[in-house]
């Protein structure tokens, strides 16, 4: 060896490198359409990243201030568009809390059943999309088949597959159909079968497990500090479910378990959602058993509920009531309230400020996946580029809710 070779340390002659800037842009199949992650990579691992949301900001909160309280329902539908009924019910509960009214029992059971169906649709989509992004295309198609069954049921009940706008302040737009119970029971049974098949296919698969276990881990303290709720927080080990901790409607009277994970990795988030699907079926069956076949669905309060059409055309009180509610909007008392329910992604809260007129003064939706996506930076920094896809998929960021 030459003298110069013996003196130099190999580390000294290494060339300095700069981290590579990679833009995982908003138009990307695994970015759920609307998130841009600008990452600095050193080899395969991410040194720093900047998560940019807002590519689906549709001005929901500004639009709510331009109509009436009932006209907010189509907008909230499109916030978390995979479980729109949960948004409808959440907003209706917020308005009813401010009004101080409670809907009849039949409506509560109906709302719970439809809400749990929407939650099932959300979890089916999330787990299916996660599997597809990892290359398992078949379970995705099976989950979509299950979701189509739910959407058929929703179409029978509300008229629309996806964006129903079915909730109203003080009740629902229509009572349950005659075939609702039988149809819902059949759908639930089918979905349990689909879940059994999917579990058989995925949970023993070495590749699937290796890509999800210990990937995208977040500590419990970080998760709480970041404001995570819902399946993402439950995967870390905290059993916080709004339906159990602060029961609303009739959730205190149904029996169900809250699945909790252990390590806070992507696999736990996936499995918590699969288990929640089974618990939702349990809740739906209990709701269907207790849903009565007759009785009023809407609260009997002329200030908020539109009268039946026969009365509008035959009596003067009906006409006036209809006119006032449609033209001026139903009037919520002045003040503010924060009402929270368990949405598909966590604590879905509505903070509404009313000035006493029929137009909302401020409608603030507390989006669970906005805070969850805020933690994405912490989750993927230090991980490898390929881990971003399952980690981000397991967080279930819904663009409409995150950006509103």
């Amino acid at each position, binding site marked *: 060896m030459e003298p110069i070779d013996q003196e130099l340390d190999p580390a000294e002659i290494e060339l300095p490198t700069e981290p590579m800037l990679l833009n995982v842009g908003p138009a990307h199949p695994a970015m759920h359409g609307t998130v841009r992650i600008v990452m600095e990579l050193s080899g395969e691992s991410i040194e720093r990243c900047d998560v940019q949301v807002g590519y689906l900001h549709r001005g929901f909160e500004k639009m709510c201030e331009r109509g009436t309280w009932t006209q907010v329902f189509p907008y909230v539908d499109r916030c978390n568009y995979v479980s729109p009924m949960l948004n409808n019910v959440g907003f209706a509960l917020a308005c009813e809390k401010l009004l101080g009214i409670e809907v009849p029992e039949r409506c509560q059971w109906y709302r719970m059943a439809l809400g749990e169906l929407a939650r099932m649709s959300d979890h089916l989509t999330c787990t299916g999309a996660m599997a597809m992004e990892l290359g398992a295309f078949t379970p995705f198609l099976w989950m979509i088949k299950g979701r189509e069954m739910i959407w058929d049921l929703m179409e029978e009940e509300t008229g629309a*597959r996806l964006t129903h706008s079915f909730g109203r302040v003080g009740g629902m737009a229509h009572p349950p159909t005659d075939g609702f119970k039988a149809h819902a029971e059949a759908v639930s049974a089918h979905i349990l079968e689909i879940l059994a098949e999917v579990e058989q296919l995925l949970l023993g698969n070495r590749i699937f497990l290796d890509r999800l276990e210990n990937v995208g881990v977040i500590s419990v303290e970080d998760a709480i500090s970041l404001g995570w709720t819902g399946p993402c927080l439950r995967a870390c080990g905290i059993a916080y479910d709004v339906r159990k901790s602060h029961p609303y409607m009739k959730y205190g009277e149904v029996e169900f378990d809250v699945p909790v994970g252990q390590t806070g990795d992507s696999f736990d988030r996936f499995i918590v959602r699969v288990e929640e699907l089974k618990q939702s079926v349990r809740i739906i069956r209990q709701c269907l058993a207790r849903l009565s076949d007759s009785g009023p669905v809407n609260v009997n309060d002329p200030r908020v509920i539109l009268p039946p059409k026969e009365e509008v055309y035959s009596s003067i009180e009906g006409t006036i009531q209809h006119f006032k509610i449609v033209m001026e909007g139903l009037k919520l008392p002045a003040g503010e309230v924060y009402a929270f329910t368990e949405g598909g992604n966590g604590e879905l809260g509505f903070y509404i400020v009313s000035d006493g007129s029929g137009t909302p003064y401020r409608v603030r939706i507390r989006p669970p996946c906005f805070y969850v996506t805020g933690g994405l930076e912490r989750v993927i920094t230090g991980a490898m580029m390929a881990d971003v896809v399952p980690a981000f998929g397991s967080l279930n960021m819904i663009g409409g809710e995150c950006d509103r």
Partner: protein
Amino acid sequence: MGTLKEEEAKILETGQGEGFITTKASDLLAWAQKYSLFMYPFVTACCGMEFMAVSSPRYDFSRFGSEAPRFSPRQSDLLWVVGTIVQRQAPILRRIYEQMAEPKWVLAFGTCASCGGFYDNYACVAGLDKIIPCDIYVPGCPPRPEAVLDGLMLLMDKIASRDRTPATVKPRSDPREDQSLGLVQLRRSRPSTPSV
């Protein structure tokens, strides 16, 4: 660039020296193009859920040959713009469109992509035709999968006839009301007038 090629094709079709072989060749080309559309799904919002439903086995647009989603604009010829386009996303949409090679078509999936929907505010673009040219508009919020398939078949007709005028999908009669069409029997248990 693209328009020049279109005119050349027309000369081939309708020019004085039009021959049997060249007409058949261009028909063959059009037939091949329409049954092998590689799509770029530019998915943003709720219509994406219906897009997933249209691509899944129940409604299945792959039976029309347009199965393969190519997530690169260089390799695709049909741009599906699915969902609301907000002002922040507009430059990206334009860049994706410009990166696609001719011949290319654009399908506006949903009301937000067609005309902005009920989001007439500071944040949204009122229809993607303000940014890029569009061939087929499929209205609906979100559109039913059958409407999307109508739009796709309409696009295939237009490709076959070399027609570049834009068109909108219009609603069709409910098969339930006309059982003589011989379509799927749908179960309806709700009476026609709601009673509260």
